[in-house]
């Protein structure tokens, strides 16, 4: 095909090994391998099947928030109420259980509460599109946790360990593989498939790259945003379920700053907060990078405070590095001219 200037236009980029290997995901794979080598050197028990699964179980419950968070970032939106949603849904699960409702129904209640919270976020945001998502979810973040606080006060609601199969959601294993790990892999595959292989996923990218253009192309932007926010609420509640299963008891201060961890994971995975960018494999890799890094640093007794510094630095440097590389390349090109 020839363009206006008579130059050949090739719709599909020719395959080149250089661009293939200079992808962000390979960089993440490299970091991932480095961290695992480091961890294996730190503890002789680390590099075994059960050792690795112990490690994954230490952080995977948070990862359920990172999955829909990736969608939110693709849209160019933001949701900082997820930690509070996880908290209020876990609290409602415990309250329902202590009110004598059977556990299976409690989980349904928990998921419904999460979905409802997500729906409220989404409705406010789509009815008042002028509002920045950051500020709406800031309000609901305070509101949701406030409701949990108001109900529970400084007491806790627990006794969940009495139901064996419920604790097993977190602690149980099928063979050597933890149940939570299996659930996570299924969810991650589903999220990745929808984002990259379905029309819905392409819509998300379209909205994130240019909202107005997407609107004119006939995409129901607000409806899709609403769906994504509801989905985020639902999966925050899933985190709430696993958190309750892990601890057997809930309080109003659980899951604090989970939103920050989920955002870090998604951003590290290559999703820009400006929207329209990112590859789902990146998020999954980033989840394991952050998780294993924390676990490894915990193995050598690095204090939690130093860990904050390391994770913060990792986040900033990984986002800044490609930008600086581009700037250097740009200025070198200028010089050559």
């Amino acid at each position, binding site marked *: 095909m020839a363009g206006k200037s008579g130059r050949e236009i090739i719709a599909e980029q020719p395959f080149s090994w250089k661009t293939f290997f200079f992808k962000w995901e390979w960089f993440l794979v490299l970091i991932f391998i480095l961290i695992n080598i480091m961890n294996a050197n730190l503890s002789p028990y680390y590099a075994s099947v059960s050792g690795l699964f112990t490690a994954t179980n230490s952080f995977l419950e948070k990862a359920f928030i990172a999955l829909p968070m990736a969608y939110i970032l693709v849209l160019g939106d933001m949701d900082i109420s997820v930690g509070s949603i996880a908290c209020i849904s876990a609290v409602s699960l415990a309250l329902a259980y202590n009110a004598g409702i059977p556990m299976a129904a409690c989980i349904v209640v928990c998921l419904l509460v999460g979905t409802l919270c997500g729906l409220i976020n989404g409705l406010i945001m789509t009815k008042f599109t002028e509002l920045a998502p950051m*500020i709406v979810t800031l309000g609901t973040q305070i*509101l949701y946790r406030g409701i949990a*606080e*108001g109900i529970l006060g400084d007491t806790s609601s627990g006794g969940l360990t009495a139901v064996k199969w419920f604790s097993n959601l977190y602690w149980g294993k099928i063979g050597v593989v933890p149940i939570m790990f299996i659930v996570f892999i299924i969810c991650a595959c589903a999220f990745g498939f929808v984002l990259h292989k379905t029309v819905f996923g392409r819509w998300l990218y379209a909205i994130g790259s240019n909202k107005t253009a997407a609107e004119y192309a006939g995409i129901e932007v607000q409806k899709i945003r609403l769906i994504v926010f509801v989905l985020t609420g639902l999966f925050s509640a899933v985190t709430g379920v696993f958190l309750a299963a892990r601890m057997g008891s809930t309080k109003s201060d659980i899951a604090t700053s989970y939103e920050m961890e989920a955002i870090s994971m998604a951003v590290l995975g290559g999703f820009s907060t400006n929207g329209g960018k990112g590859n789902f494999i990146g998020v999954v890799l980033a989840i394991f990078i952050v998780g294993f890094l924390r676990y490894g640093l915990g193995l050598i007794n690095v204090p939690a405070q130093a860990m904050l510094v390391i994770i913060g630095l990792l986040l900033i440097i990984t986002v800044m590095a490609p930008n600086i590389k581009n700037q250097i390349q740009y200025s070198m090109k200028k010089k050559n001219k």
Partner: protein
Amino acid sequence: MNKKFDLKKLTSSREMSLVIVLIVLCVFIQLRNSTFLQFGTIEAMLKNYAVMMIMALGMMCVLLTGGIDIAIGSTLAFSGMFSALIMRDHPGVPVIGGFLISMVVGMVLGAVIGVVISKGKVPPIVATLGFMNIYRGCTYLIADSRWVAAYQVPEGFKAFAQSYYLTGGLLNNMITVIIICYVIFFIALKWTTAGRRVYAVGSNAEAAEVSGINVDSVKIGVYSLMGLLSGLGGALWVSLYASAQGDMATGLEMDVIAACVVGGVSLNGGRGTVPGVFLGGLIMAIIGKALPLIGVSQFWQSAIKGLIILFAVILNVVTQRTMDKNALKRREM
């Protein structure tokens, strides 16, 4: 005719609606508890919320440029802790020295954030999210995870928050600092070139760049300013609570952002005024102070705060829409 038009403009302005909200709040609380509108209560309230109100000014500048800074709680903790540690080890440091150390440290931390955002092209929310963790971690590390307890803070420094010498016995020092900050910012943002540049960058960064404003240096400037005010907040915090802890001011950033938003500052940049922020801060302070006075359980306070933030921002949108509609109507006529 002319006068009538002005009156209409006045009543429909955002600040006026905030004043009305403020008056309604005060009257309601006063009816429930008559100890509210007394000099002592108001003074205690302003003292406790001084840090939040002062930092709201810096946050407004950051929001005006279209950025956001959620690292301010950590910046406050680090600079406050830094100056408290120095005062612990060198008790001879004068009060003003403690403040200066804290403010300079805060400004440096803020400048680092500004450089990363403007030169490294990292989105503000991501950069400050990272620095929130880094500075908080560093606060624990420099203090070795310990407190600086009340007996280690110099007497003169502790006395600052409780005495009245800045105005010669008229007003509490904390309140004097609030007033000074607001007056400076009001003048600077309204009548100086630097202030107008902040608005210009926020309204349209590209247009600002083309018209010869160095956008990067304006951004570094506002984040440094935010850091400076966080440092000031850190010193005031140590003085007020007579101790420095590693976890001080966690979550303060949300209160500060909320005060700005209630005061009508837009998160998209370019819109917001100093009087609006003052009223927003005052409303947040009154809510925080007055809920226990009218017998609301402390556990329900944050739920109510969240509701009020949502209510305020939605109200903002609705008034903006009606204002736009009215403007359109007037043009059609």
